[in-house]
């Protein structure tokens, strides 16, 4: 079976080389059939990669331990869903997942754009071919998932922390996000290579960028929930380099999603947009490099890692290529349109962009600094939480405020008096909220108080936007409120979907501020019958239970929970002892109050031989708003992504002539 996997990857390698070389030649020399052939090579590359992926999945499902990768990441006793997710539990499988998602995106993006941007797609094909070639080379020559060994009786099992439902989905979404950023990058580079710097590359990639951005956002939230449930330290984000690796490109992509609107509306920021899209893609490569090269643990493990130097070389090639192309096409990217006023929607988007990029680069610097210092000075200097928290407040709080102001300002220019009138209601509500919070005693954390006040401003600005828009539509059409509301959103999906996403970010900010600035914690060693009080709860340790799970012994300390005079039932926390993996994992107990959004979070730090248990207990106010934000985020993204038939008709009319001409071969 390994032979088929290896052969499928070799076929993908050949197809990638063909898409790069034949595609480049076809575009350069203007050869129609060769261009179609190169495009077909990209489509076929997806199927050959899919075959390789299915071979690996079959290896896991059939416990084929003659495959070294399967033996290293699975065992007979591993539940089926984790056998499947063990696919991406290690370096080789992760790279194969990267390639599968890349070839899938490339095939779909090129296929859907084949008519409207045919002359552009010709140049996009070799760019996709080049990216696929980089990853296929790693899989074929450096880090193959199809290495074979003399099959052991059983595999080594999967790292217990990866045996979690969130780890089944988290990497898939993360890679859909990381790799999806290759689509706008390939089209932007295709536009620069061909010299066609009109808007077609943006129109062709608008939805792909949004899909990638949404997937990366969902992936991060799933990862945060996994860390919260599985890692067992009481938090959901630790500014760990691997976590930052996903956040950094997401911030760059967020900046791009905003700045691209200025190009669409005003024809401005063309250079900035291709720069941002290149930055987002190169950062997604950097993120994969961070998580897969071993450089995070130490610069020395990077040099020992087989893929590290190759990957770094690949990133350097991507950065140099993108920079050279932007430099070369600067004259065509320059526009005459200028910012008319510092008080305008596009100015607000520009400030938002500067803050997002500043935050992105600050986090990048903090993440890269330990590696840089180790490489230069021989000692790794860890950048701690205070660094990140400081810059999150410095850049994040103004960003939050701008989310409220931006939608209320008109395009081109607005007077200060007009702006003051537009923000009067949200500002009044925000100030009243701030005063109320101080009166309720929430002034103990100044950043938390500011975050809540700004959040109230943004939420009320969003509500005002929906109310004003619906009222204006009703005044014009005489429709009922639900009809006017539905059509308002339906005919401006990107705008109102964007507002819903903003609401999700506000929920996230409230959840983060509440759970980090106003949480309570208690720690204690309890014997049976003893109690611990924290944040209004009283927990009494009742018993220790033990049972055999599918592939682990599950030890749980059960506690009775009371708040005030109310009996709230029991909560269990403990440890799982995995026999095959020879590892022990923390299994936390979480009791969520869906009405208040608060969590009672219990960690059984140590289980003593005498039956006593050392507990650490947190009460985290509003933490569930973070997960609710995820649902609202998906809803907003779906609204923005949903196809708009009117917009499609408008674009079809605009590009009809170009489509018609490119359908027929040239006569010369």
């Amino acid at each position, binding site marked *: 079976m390994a032979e088929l996997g290896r052969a499928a990857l070799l076929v993908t390698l*050949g197809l990638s080389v063909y898409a790069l070389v034949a595609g480049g030649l076809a575009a350069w020399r203007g050869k129609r059939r060769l261009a*179609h052939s190169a495009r*077909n090579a990209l489509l076929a590359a997806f199927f050959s990669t899919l075959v390789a992926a299915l071979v690996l999945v079959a290896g896991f499902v059939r416990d084929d331990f003659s495959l070294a990768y399967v033996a290293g990441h699975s065992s007979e006793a591993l539940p089926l869903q984790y056998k499947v997710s063990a696919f991406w539990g290690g370096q080789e499988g992760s790279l194969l997942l990267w390639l599968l998602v890349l070839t899938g995106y490339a095939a779909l993006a090129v296929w859907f754009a084949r008519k409207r941007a045919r002359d552009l797609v010709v140049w996009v094909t070799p760019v996709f071919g080049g990216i696929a070639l980089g990853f296929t080379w790693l899989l074929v020559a450096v880090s193959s998932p199809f290495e074979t060994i003399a099959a052991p009786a059983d595999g080594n099992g999967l790292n217990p922390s990866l045996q979690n439902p969130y780890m089944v989905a988290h990497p898939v979404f993360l890679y859909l996000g990381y790799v999806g950023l290759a689509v706008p990058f390939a089209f932007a580079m295709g536009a620069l290579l061909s010299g066609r710097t*009109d808007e077609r590359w943006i129109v062709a990639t608008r939805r792909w960028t949004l899909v990638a951005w949404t997937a990366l956002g969902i992936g991060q939230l799933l990862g945060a929930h996994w860390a919260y449930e599985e890692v067992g330290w009481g938090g959901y984000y630790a500014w760990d380099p691997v976590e930052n690796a996903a956040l950094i490109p997401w911030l760059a992509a967020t900046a791009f999603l905003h700045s691209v609107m200025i190009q669409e509306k005003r024809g401005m920021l063309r250079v900035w947009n291709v720069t941002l899209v290149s930055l987002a893609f190169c950062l997604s490569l950097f993120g994969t490099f961070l998580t897969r090269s071993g450089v995070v643990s130490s610069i020395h493990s990077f040099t020992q890692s087989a893929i590290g130097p190759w990957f770094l070389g690949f990133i350097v090639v991507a950065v140099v290529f993108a920079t050279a192309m932007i430099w070369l096409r600067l004259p065509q990217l320059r526009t005459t349109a200028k910012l008319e006023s510092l008080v305008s929607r596009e100015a607000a988007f520009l400030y938002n962009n500067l803050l997002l990029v500043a935050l992105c680069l600050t986090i990048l610097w903090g993440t890269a600094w330990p590696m840089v210092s180790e490489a230069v000075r021989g000692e790794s200097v860890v950048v701690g939480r205070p660094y990140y928290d400081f810059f999150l407040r410095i850049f994040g709080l103004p960003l939050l405020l701008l989310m409220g102001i931006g939608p209320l300002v008109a395009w081109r*220019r607005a007077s200060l008096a007009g702006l003051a009138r*537009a923000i009067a209601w949200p500002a009044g509500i925000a100030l009243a909220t701030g005063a109320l919070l101080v009166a309720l005693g929430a002034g103990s954390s100044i950043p938390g108080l500011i975050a809540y006040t700004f959040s109230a401003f943004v939420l009320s600005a969003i509500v005002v936007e929906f109310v004003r*828009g619906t*009222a204006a539509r009703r005044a014009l059409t005489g429709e009922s409120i639900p009809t006017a509301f539905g059509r308002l959103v339906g005919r401006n999906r990107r705008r109102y979907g964007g507002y819903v996403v903003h609401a999700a970010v506000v929920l996230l900010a409230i959840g983060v501020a509440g759970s980090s600035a106003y949480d309570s914690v208690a720690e204690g060693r309890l014997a049976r019958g003893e109690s611990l009080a924290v944040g209004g709860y009283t927990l009494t340790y009742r018993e220790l239970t033990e049972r055999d799970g599918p592939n682990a012994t599950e030890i749980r300390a059960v506690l009775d929970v009371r708040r005030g005079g109310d009996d709230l039932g029991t909560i269990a926390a403990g440890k799982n002892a995995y026999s095959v993996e020879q590892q022990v994992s923390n299994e936390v107990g979480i009791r969520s109050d869906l009405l208040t959004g608060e969590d009672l979070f219990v960690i059984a730090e140590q289980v003593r031989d005498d039956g006593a248990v050392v507990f650490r207990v947190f009460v985290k106010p509003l933490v569930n708003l973070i997960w609710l934000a995820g649902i609202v985020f998906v809803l907003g993204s779906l609204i923005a992504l949903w196809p708009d038939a009117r917009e499609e008709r408008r674009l079809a009319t605009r590009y009809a002539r170009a489509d018609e001409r490119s359908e027929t071969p040239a*006569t010369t």
Partner: protein
Amino acid sequence: MNGWFVLAAALAVGTVVVVALPFLRDPAPASDALHELDEAERALLEAQEERDRALAALKELEADHRAGRLSDEDYRSVVGPLRREAAQALRTLDRLEAGTATAESKSG
């Protein structure tokens, strides 16, 4: 093991056929040149984008004004230049389309 080799060979042959398909379907075309947009077509496309941008800006301005996001004074200061831009974009587009039509009738 042989079975896997046969499958691998079938995969390789299948992909070669897919890649060769444009040549197999059209072995002797009258022309194998890609159609490239010429300068006039590119200018037309950019003029269409400019027209759409200007008209969308006007529409959005009206919506902002109706919804109260824009005061009457701000509206009056912006609407004039925007209308002029839209008119200019439409004129440019008309001129380019007329030029393209003339060129096509001459070549046809």
